[in-house]
């Protein structure tokens, strides 16, 4: 089965389970955060994708990391994906679940990365501004990413609006290289 179809299959299954349990929004949020942590943490990614590590131990890692602050349904769904040997597809599956959940609410996902946590009021104003800028009813998912140094970068579908310090430094570097 092609990877894209497989990701769609897993996403659809998780979506149906979360919908049946009435936790669609929460599961979507938590999966999104887990996917970002998976992407940014190399040790976590290696622990969950290494075929030499037994499934039991992987389950233990997931429980230790997520158990306290994540819903049992989300933990079970992540465990299901990792046990099936699809841990490397976890970010793509989570993104697909989030996008489908948002789409079901007729919204587009805006992935917003900042160096520090944003307060609710700022997220609300950011949501409104992104909606106006993209012409879509957006649902903001925030990710704390220290590598951006400062400022905000938002990705809505294929559109990326980058106002981070790291991006400006990168532009500065490109300008220096051109001279």
């Amino acid at each position: 089965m092609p990877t894209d179809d497989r990701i769609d299959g897993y996403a659809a299954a998780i979506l149906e389970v979360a919908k049946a349990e009435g936790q669609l929004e929460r599961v979507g949020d938590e999966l999104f955060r887990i996917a970002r942590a998976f992407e940014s943490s190399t040790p976590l990614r290696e622990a969950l994708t290494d075929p030499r590590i037994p499934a039991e131990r992987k389950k233990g890692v997931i429980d230790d990391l997520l158990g306290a602050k994540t819903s049992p349904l989300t933990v079970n769904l992540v465990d299901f994906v990792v046990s099936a040997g699809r841990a490397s597809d976890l970010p793509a599956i989570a993104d697909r679940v989030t996008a489908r959940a948002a789409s079901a609410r007729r919204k587009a996902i805006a992935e917003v990365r900042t160096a520090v946590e944003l307060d609710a009021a700022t997220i609300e104003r950011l949501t409104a501004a992104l909606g106006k800028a993209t012409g879509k009813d957006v649902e903001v998912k925030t990710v704390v990413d220290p590598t951006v140094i400062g400022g905000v970068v938002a990705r809505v579908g294929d559109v990326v609006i980058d106002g981070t310090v790291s991006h400006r430094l990168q532009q500065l570097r490109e300008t220096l290289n051109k001279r």
Partner: protein
Amino acid sequence: MHLLAPIRLLAQVTEEPTTEPSGIDLLLPASSELIAGLIAFAIIFVFVWKWVLPVVDKRLAARQEAITSQLTAAEATKLEAESLLADYKQQVARARDDANRIVEDARRTAETHRSETTARADTEAAEIVRKAREEAAGEKQRAAGAIRDEVATLSLAVAAKAVAGAVDAKAHKKLVEQYIAELGALHP
């Protein structure tokens, strides 16, 4: 002896009674001698005319014919020799022309070859020099680019650290507010 008998007889018949000759008679032969001489001459003349001359004529004609034939042969030989000489001269001239042409061709070929070799060597040398210059320029440019990249990377790392240290909560908030304000200026 028999042949001279009639002549002697004739001389005896015509012989006049001898008187002592004098004057011119001392010089002139006797008539009988003269007649006998004439007869003898006639006989000899007839003999020579009848038998000797044809043989001589025949021999002379044969001799003339032989000489004419030899002359013709000599003429033909001479003509042939002249023709051969002309042919030989022509061949020698042709051979000389050929030799001159071959030498000239060889000289021209050598000259052309030398010119071509020189031109090719010049072109190759120019090409080598051009490539070397280009490579040197490219290497210089690459080195400059690498140094520029390195400087830019180091500068960026230093700037990132400096900026990261300088961005406090207030600065973060200001940057986010600035971003929201800039979003307001964008249109879908």
